[in-house]
């Protein structure tokens, strides 16, 4: 079965935030932002702007009736700047006008006077100055310090990974309406309706019950609308609350890129120790996370980095420490993978470093150290149903890893200015919110008297197909056609206190809640059938809308049964609650059982580098992935292919450039490049591993959202492999993304750096030499 939305998508009939018919009297909002990354806010003069045609209100921090605070984990983020500004693009005031043009035009008439203060953009520098969001965390297993002495080989190094702009094609936005009860109704493009509700209530100084948030779907989220949709929802609500008129706020692309946080850049130190047999004995990593100006989700991202610091390897002695560093960039936030890609990049760098120095293939070290059943993660949860070796061995056999390696070597021997590279990227990803309390969900299921069904959950549809899966779960559990099911918008008045659609866990949590609700309804209906038809309840089923008694059609079907239930005054609605069982984690000891289960997989990546121009192509990414019992292979394949390509983007083209003043230079689609059709791998194979799934996964269909992003890391190491084939002695720091610039500069490390050197004859000789090698 296919995803339900696409038939509407292809006809342009799916409604997104900006498509909602505009209500009479709507005001349009535009955000006045700080042009300085750090400073004291001296004066805010809105007088001239207020006189511009069409301008109705200009709201500042003083107009906030409640608390000027939207920090989720740490209360350190004002909705509108007050006293100081901490990043370029920080909202300072809100213009409300009769038209979008008028609101935008008024922005330049607002005078924001700021006395600049020193700007921090480097996380290590921030840490050195004690600018930490939360105290550092350390995860420990065994005793790494004591283990170094016993290692045959010890290597140390530094690994840097860049940020990543979400670039959901639908920009951030919200549309708020004042309600007759003195509250607001917000239509929001958010992954976290409850977060928007909670923070808006706080800002307005009203109860959460006075704030209704509704979400139909998002035009992409990828984590960027988990916490960072909140300011726009709260600002629109503030406008509607104060002006008593509907307020629509949609960021234009460049404002969105300037003002919102992204994937965290990390700068990390690693130390790895191996014995003579290439078994990893000890690993130490120190992560400096560039959190930006406010906490946002950074502490949770940081924690997940630590959880995944050893990727899919068993290492008996581990010390992993992480610092969340406060800088003057927009608050960095969730992005598919949520700190895991950054952590995995470091361990893979450490392994590559060891392999390169020892003159062995990295895959020798990787394969030897894969997790086995019962191995402990550094947080002391054992693996259960471990498929790390199965994934690797299946990929290696199915795609002929030795053959691929041989092919690369032969190609490289035959070509001087073209080189291929190969890398294996195994992954292991823990499923669950690591904040245990968030692993709960509710589903409200109504059966209408005609037999049609409406399902409301806390899940937000953003292209991941969660609504399709929820409809499938409902249809399968009730024994009816999926055509009878409608998955409703996500609305805080129907399903309250929701967790955001994040952590790959949305389908599991909301699907399980849906399953529970539908089971209860099915039981209720079948008990009625048992009574009315005098049948034994134990043998009753509903299949294809027919009631079966001991496998044989009984004298009733879905529609009749539903109708009978109504006339018997039996409830046709159910509200179910699901909380993932068995989870616990102690953040003091950093030990426990935080994950419902883990997802495994392995990708083989082949690239080709044009060593004359420094450009490259990803020839093939071949994946074996642990889906469990996939509920929807079409949706799941889309998640794997899309995640892998997004990860490749992060590792190759996607380069965020800030200057020293904290200004984003890669501030539009023409200067920040995400993968296009031609940059996707030529071959992208996905093999569904034969794995049983996990009982904590919805209908044993494992979570698929985030894990595949990490396959993209293989592309970085494959490029490294190709560069080293051309220039074995190149220093080649571990620094992602591997842009064409880095490739070329690493292919020609002797290239002069000064004009004089470029034009002097002496240098010319060395240039010629380097071309010939």
């Amino acid at each position, binding site marked *: 079965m296919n995803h339900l939305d696409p038939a509407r998508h292809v006809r342009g009939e*799916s409604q997104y935030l900006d498509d909602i018919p505009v209500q009479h009297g709507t005001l349009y909002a535009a955000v006045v932002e700080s042009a300085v990354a750090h400073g004291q806010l001296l004066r805010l003069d809105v007088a001239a702007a207020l006189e511009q045609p069409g301008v109705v209100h200009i709201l500042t921090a003083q107009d906030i009736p409640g608390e000027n605070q939207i920090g989720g984990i740490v209360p350190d983020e004002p909705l509108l700047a007050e006293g100081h500004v901490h990043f370029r693009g920080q909202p300072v005031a809100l213009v409300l006008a009769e038209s979008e043009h008028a609101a935008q035009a008024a922005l330049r008439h607002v005078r924001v006077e700021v006395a600049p203060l020193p700007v921090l953009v480097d996380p290590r520098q921030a840490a050195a100055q004690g600018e930490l969001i939360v105290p550092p965390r350390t995860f420990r297993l065994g005793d790494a310090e004591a283990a170094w002495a016993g290692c045959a080989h010890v290597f140390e190094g530094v690994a840097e990974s860049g940020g990543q702009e979400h670039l959901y094609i639908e920009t951030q936005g919200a549309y708020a309406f004042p309600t007759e009860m003195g509250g607001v109704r917000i239509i929001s493009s958010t992954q976290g309706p409850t977060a928007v509700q909670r923070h808006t209530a706080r800002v307005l100084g009203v109860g959460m019950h006075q704030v209704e948030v509704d979400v139909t*779907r998002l035009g992409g989220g990828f984590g960027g609308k988990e916490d960072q949709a909140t300011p726009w929802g709260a600002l629109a609500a503030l406008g509607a609350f104060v002006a008593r008129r509907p307020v629509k706020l949609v960021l234009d692309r460049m404002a969105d890129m300037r003002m919102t946080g992204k994937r965290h850049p990390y700068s990390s130190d690693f130390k790895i120790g191996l014995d003579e047999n290439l078994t990893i004995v000890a690993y130490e990593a120190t992560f400096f996370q560039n959190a930006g100006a406010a906490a946002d989700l950074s502490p949770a991202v940081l924690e997940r980095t630590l959880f995944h610091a050893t990727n899919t390897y068993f290492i008996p002695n581990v010390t992993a420490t992480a610092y969340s560093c406060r800088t003057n960039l927009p608050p960095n936030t969730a992005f598919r993978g949520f700190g895991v890609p950054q952590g995995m990049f470091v361990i893979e760098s450490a392994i590559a470093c060891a392999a390169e120095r020892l003159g062995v293939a990295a895959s020798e070290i990787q394969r030897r150290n894969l997790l086995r059943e019962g191995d402990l993660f550094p947080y002391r949860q054992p693996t259960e149903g471990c498929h790390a070796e199965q994934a690797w061995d299946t990929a290696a056999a199915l795609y002929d890893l030795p053959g691929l390696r041989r092919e690369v070597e032969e190609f490289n021997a035959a070509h001087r200015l073209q080189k291929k590279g190969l890398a294996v990227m195994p992954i292991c990803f823990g499923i669950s919110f690591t904040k245990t309390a968030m692993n709960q969900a509710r589903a409200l299921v109504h059966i209408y008297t005609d037999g049609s069904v409406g399902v409301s959950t806390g899940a937000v549809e953003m292209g991941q197909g969660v609504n399709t899966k929820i409809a499938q779960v409902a249809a399968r559990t009730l024994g009816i056609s999926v055509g009878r099911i409608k998955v409703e918008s996500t609305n805080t008045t129907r399903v309250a206190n929701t967790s955001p659609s994040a952590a790959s866990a949305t389908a599991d949590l909301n699907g399980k809640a849906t399953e529970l609700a539908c089971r209860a309804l099915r039981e209720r209906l079948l008990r009625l059938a048992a009574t009315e038809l005098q049948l034994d309840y134990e043998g009753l089923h509903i299949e294809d809308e027919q009631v079966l008694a001991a496998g044989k059609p009984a004298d009733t079907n879905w529609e009749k049964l539903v109708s009978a239930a109504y006339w018997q005054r039996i409830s046709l609605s159910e509200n179910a609650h699901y909380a993932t069982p068995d989870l616990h984690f102690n953040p003091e000891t950093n030990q426990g059982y935080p994950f419902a289960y883990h997802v495994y997989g392995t990708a083989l990546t082949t690239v080709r580098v044009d060593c004359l121009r420094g450009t490259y192509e990803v020839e093939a990414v071949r994946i074996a992935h642990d889906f469990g019992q996939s509920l929807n292979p079409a949706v799941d394949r889309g998640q794997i292919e899309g995640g892998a390509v997004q990860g490749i983007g992060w590792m190759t083209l996607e380069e965020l450039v800030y200057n020293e003043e904290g200004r984003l230079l890669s501030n539009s689609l023409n200067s920040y490049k995400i993968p296009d059709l031609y940059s996707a791998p030529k071959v992208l194979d996905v093999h569904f591993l034969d794995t049983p799934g996990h009982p904590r996964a919805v209908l044993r269909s494992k979570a698929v959202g985030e894990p595949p992003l990490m396959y993209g890391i293989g592309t970085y190491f494959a490029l490294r492999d190709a560069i080293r084939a051309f220039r074995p002695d190149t220093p080649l720091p571990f620094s992602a993304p591997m842009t064409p610039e880095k490739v070329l500069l690493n292919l020609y490390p002797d290239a002069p750096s000064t004009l004089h050197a470029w034009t002097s004859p002496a240098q010319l000789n060395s240039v010629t030499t380097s071309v010939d090698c």
Partner: protein
Amino acid sequence: MLQFYLNQQLIRTQEPAGSTLLDFVRYHQHLTGTKIGCREGDCGACTVLVGELNPDGAAVRYQSMTSCLTPLGNAHGKHVVTVEGINAARGALTPVQQAIVAEGGSQCGFCTVGFVMSLTGHALSPNPSTPETALASIDGNICRCTGYKSLERATALLQQQLTQRPEAAPLPWLAEQGFVPAYFAHMPGQLTALRDLALGTNGTAGPTAAQGAPNACPPARAQLLGGGTDLLVQRPEQVRAAPVELVYDQPGLRGIRRTEGGSIVLGAATTAQQLLESEVMLEAVPALPRFLKLVSSTPIRQMGTVAGNFINASPIGDLTILFLALGAELELEAASGQRRVLPLSELYLDYKKLAKAADEQVREICFPAPRPTDIFTFEKVSKRTHLDIASVNTAAWLRVEDGLIREARLSAGGVGPVPLLLRRTSAWLAGRPLSAETVQQALPLAQQEISPISDVRGTEQYKRLLLRQLLMAHFGEIVNE
């Protein structure tokens, strides 16, 4: 008054000619299938089809365009098609829509309509459908869920179907197959009627001069507006508010011809797509399709004009770099009607400063056609290979006789404040043997002529290294043997 068809509806509007087609479609006509993604032609979420009546009045030629950068005035007299204009009745899907659904090519759905329109444009295109051209039709569409593999599979499925498309008059077949609704058959007639009506009222067919703008007679010379691909990125608010003079559809500014003297002359409003479809151009520069594949995307190549690329004066304008090496000259016309010829290489004084009076307009572009024995190459490296702005681009034209370089023109972009003709290096090459040694000696000379700065497209060191590599690439096997 602008008049055009939007799907089945005749539109008559006084909206400014310099406003965007996207805003008109979404906010005036409430057709919300067309999405806003970036407003700079880089994502394709706003892709629509713009159909222009062939001169013979018998058929309409449809091209995909990003409506965010299409001046509303450029819709005058045409048939604009949004997804609402191709949707079949009662929720039925067109073959393009079916293929995308069947292959799981739509995830969040926000970019999807753009892909639908681009592929429908491909189906309607008079050019042959091959696996490559079919994929190229969606090269201007970005999907951030990165569902490209499923979109590739959908495209392949569709391309299979299109192999059945009759070469001549394919519209009845396309309508029968459900690619477009039946009303498309009436569009040539309706556009002809629109054209005749215009002829009847003011004696001219296209929206020449400032006719498209509400202010019929702008004072002095209004802002010239071509395909919109630069101006509507850089200052849409200004262009919307001011009177504009539309040049995209002026018949006198179109056309590509070869003179008896062996020169090729282009109208200023020639698009990159028209270069690609010109037999004159392909004969003179057979590798042009390969070069232009590296330049922007299918819709932008159908919108942007050659003269617009020159006048925008970007130091990395791809077409500018190509035409510098071809030795192009511009014919400029002042408001007074006075004309003069200026070599393209003399147009640029400094960053975005032109050796041209404000009222001078490019009428024609002329260059000597390369001989078949000449070497003419173009190299470009950008962060992303396609639909990206170059870090460095360069073109080389060499006239080689008996192993000697008789004449040379090397151009380089992204390495100075203006698009450069490397005069000294070019001059130095003349008269020298075409050899690896010559090339190696020329490389440091080129370095002396450039002054790259570090910016978002690369560091100075990278740009110097990259130019060296690309200059070597021009010489291909000679230097790399």
